[in-house]
């Protein structure tokens, strides 16, 4: 049945046809998405506002730093160490098949890690751990009325719940991702040395890393560190239902945080390309 037929049927029978219902469904979905985008934007702006003008809770940022930073350290070190080993192993294997000259593998690998890989892979790991944690904590506060209780006590939920995590995440994500760069480089160097006999002095070649790579990599660290708590906080604050709702909020937080980091990565990489390398 065509759209036209559906509309005609709607007009004739008094009941909306399938096409009209379909269009209404698409329209409702679009409106829901527009509302969600507006709310996410509102949370972002309020987070920035309360980061400067909000009320400071003693020790809240430090506690969040510990939760986001210290408690992610082992997980991130292990994952990024293995990712570095896998990347160098495959790079060296491929190079050996073509030219067999491995003396620049370290230089190009380190450039790739500093400019992009440590930040993008590491931030997705943090999105799974930190993002899920933030959404679950705030989501369970929503379904048990604790967020409403905060509002009854004149505590703005964005200020009280998201801002400390935002500040902590910007600092600790940057620190963790810089650490992840180092871990990836060391694990890659050891892999190249142990399996392909590449001398560590030759591998540890920083000649291809310059200010532009560092600026791009650090900008990504800061942007991802800011995005994860805002997206996850939004998912937590829009939780509804009981335990199932919290589960969905957690899933949404991981998915949307990862999506946000990939989107930001694209935007920052493209901008850097035009600014630094055009």
């Amino acid at each position, binding site marked *: 049945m065509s759209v036209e037929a559906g509309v005609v049927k709607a007009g004739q029978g008094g009941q909306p046809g399938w096409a009209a219902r379909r269009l209404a469904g698409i329209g409702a979905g679009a409106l829901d998405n527009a509302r969600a985008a507006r709310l996410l934007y509102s949370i972002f702006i309020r987070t920035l506002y309360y980061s400067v003008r909000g009320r400071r809770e003693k020790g809240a940022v430090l506690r969040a730093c510990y939760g986001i930073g210290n408690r992610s350290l082992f997980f991130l070190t292990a994952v990024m160490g293995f990712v570095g080993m896998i990347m160098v192993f495959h790079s060296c294997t491929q190079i050996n098949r073509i030219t067999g000259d491995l003396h620049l593998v370290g230089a190009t690998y380190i450039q790739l890690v500093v400019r992009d890989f440590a930040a993008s892979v590491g931030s997705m790991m943090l999105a799974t751990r930190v993002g899920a944690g933030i959404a679950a904590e705030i989501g369970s506060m929503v379904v*048990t*009325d604790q967020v*409403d*209780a*905060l*509002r*009854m*006590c004149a505590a703005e939920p964005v200020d009280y719940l998201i801002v400390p995590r935002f500040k902590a995440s910007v600092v600790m994500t940057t620190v963790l991702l810089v650490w992840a760069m180092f871990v990836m480089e060391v694990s890659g160097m050891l892999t190249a040395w142990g399996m392909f006999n590449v001398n560590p002095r030759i591998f540890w070649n920083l000649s291809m890393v310059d200010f532009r790579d560092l600026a791009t990599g650090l900008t990504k660290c800061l942007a991802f560190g800011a995005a994860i708590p805002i997206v996850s906080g939004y998912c937590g604050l829009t939780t509804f239902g009981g335990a199932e709702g919290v589960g969905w909020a957690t899933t949404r937080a991981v998915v949307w945080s990862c999506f946000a980091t990939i989107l930001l990565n694209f935007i920052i990489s493209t901008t850097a390309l035009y600014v630094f390398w055009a």
Partner: protein
Amino acid sequence: MIRVVGLRKRFGRKTVLEDVGVDIPAGGLWGLIGPGASGKTVLVKHVAGLLTPDAGRVEVEGQNISAMGEVARQKLRSRFGMLFQQNALFDSLTVAENIAFPLRRLTALDERQIAERVAERLARVGLAGFGDRTPNALSGGQRKRVGIARATVTQSEYLIFDEPTAGLDPVTSQKIFDLLRAEQISRKSTALMISSDVAGLMSVVDRVAMMLRGRLLFEGTRDEALASSDPYVKQFLRGETEGPL
């Protein structure tokens, strides 16, 4: 006075409140009863400005809280104390910190005065010495009492109690009803109370309303409720199994 006019609220496709209107007089204890999922909690959350209606309005002393922005609502909400159905205690804070939280946020009291007020509230609800514990270390009834202490600690003009005696034994329940009534009278506050313990509630309220499937079925004095010929009200107040409910 609190005035509710033509209130309607939907969550998705489910209508939770439909054309609810009532005047709640100042300085009294107003009870709200009704079967589960009849919209009682949603109604009092509208009164506290925690929800925005799809249609209709809530006026507190003539101010339309439903049309206010968040900042203005927050200012008005500071005149309310609320006990939530699930207590809504902050898990990360101790009992004393939970009770002190509204004082720190809403008043200019110093730490010594806050500590005194918290100790007085804890003693009043029979939990003296429990200040250092976390909510997770308390029983359901104890958590409820901490919630009551937090709701009443700021001595608000408006009090909302959502199931203040759920999970408490009959003796403690009656003590809590009497305590809340005494608090309300001593401060001349306006109190709204939802309770499934109909007998206990009826022993302290001035007026009572009954909700059914999102609509206000009855509103009147306690005596009018007890004398009501409405079959729903009669059955619910008497707890009979035979009837329209």
